[in-house]
């Protein structure tokens, strides 16, 4: 069990990267954790690289930026190249397949998910890919629960997107959970690194 998990999301402006960070942070807070998040600013509307990061912790966060990410969620090749070197040795990468082509699978654990395609095909919009990946993150690591994600994703979002987001999160969660089982069956215990001790009460 970790005290603090550092997550980075990377992709292109327009892919909803910033929102992923916000929803993850808000979900964590709903569960009583502490969270701190930042993101690259101002590039949302254009096609350039975009990054969001969240520190989730069972204690108040001292330094609110990611110092070394434990977990990357990557939605574009450019982001992959840029952020992978930062990842800790025991880190985990969740990436959008086949849009992102992993390059150094050896060093860290990679999990490819066809998030964009899935979103397009089953939800009708590539825009929902970000929520699919948040669901995967939750299903796989249990860093935050699906429920808190669902709640967080509802806030400040127009009604018409709420339903789509819910379905995307659920879909992702079940994909993530499948992968979690698989990993666990392999006897992999490192997944525990990504779930937190219960929040300290102050």
């Amino acid at each position, binding site marked *: 069990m970790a005290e603090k998990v550092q997550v980075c999301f990377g992709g292109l*402006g327009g892919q909803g990267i910033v929102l992923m960070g916000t929803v993850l942070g808000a979900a964590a807070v709903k569960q009583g954790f502490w969270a701190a998040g930042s993101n690259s600013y*101002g590039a949302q509307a*254009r096609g350039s690289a975009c990054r969001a990061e969240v520190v989730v912790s069972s204690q108040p966060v001292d330094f609110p930026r990611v110092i070394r990410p434990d977990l990357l969620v990557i939605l574009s090749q450019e982001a992959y190249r840029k952020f992978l070197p930062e990842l800790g040795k025991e880190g985990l990468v969740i990436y959008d397949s086949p849009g992102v082509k992993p390059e150094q699978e050896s060093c860290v654990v990679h999990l490819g998910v066809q998030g964009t395609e899935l979103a397009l095909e089953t939800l009708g919009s590539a825009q929902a890919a970000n929520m699919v990946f948040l669901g995967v993150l939750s299903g796989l690591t249990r860093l935050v629960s699906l429920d808190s994600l669902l709640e967080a994703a509802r806030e400040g979002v127009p009604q018409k997107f709420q339903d789509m987001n819910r379905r995307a999160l659920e879909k992702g969660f079940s994909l993530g959970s499948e992968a979690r089982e698989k990993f666990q069956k392999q006897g992999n215990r490192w997944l525990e690194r990504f779930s937190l001790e219960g929040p300290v009460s102050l």
Partner: protein
Amino acid sequence: MARTHRPRLNREGCKLCQMCRYLCPDLAIRLEESGGFMAIDLRYCKGCGVCAAFCPEGVIEMVREDMGEAPPKKRPRKAVARRD
């Protein structure tokens, strides 16, 4: 957002009215004087679809970028930040 669609110009029906050229926000369309046809330089095109929307002959069509196919090599983009 990366470009998801690109314009495809059907030279057949084109009347060379140049409306697409005048309205392309990225100066990506020229009248190729030699050949007497409209040419779209996809290195500059952002896929906005304005040319297609305004072509009076309806000969420009926006087609999905083939995710697989390598995009035309872009010239280096200057890093610019919004929000001065």
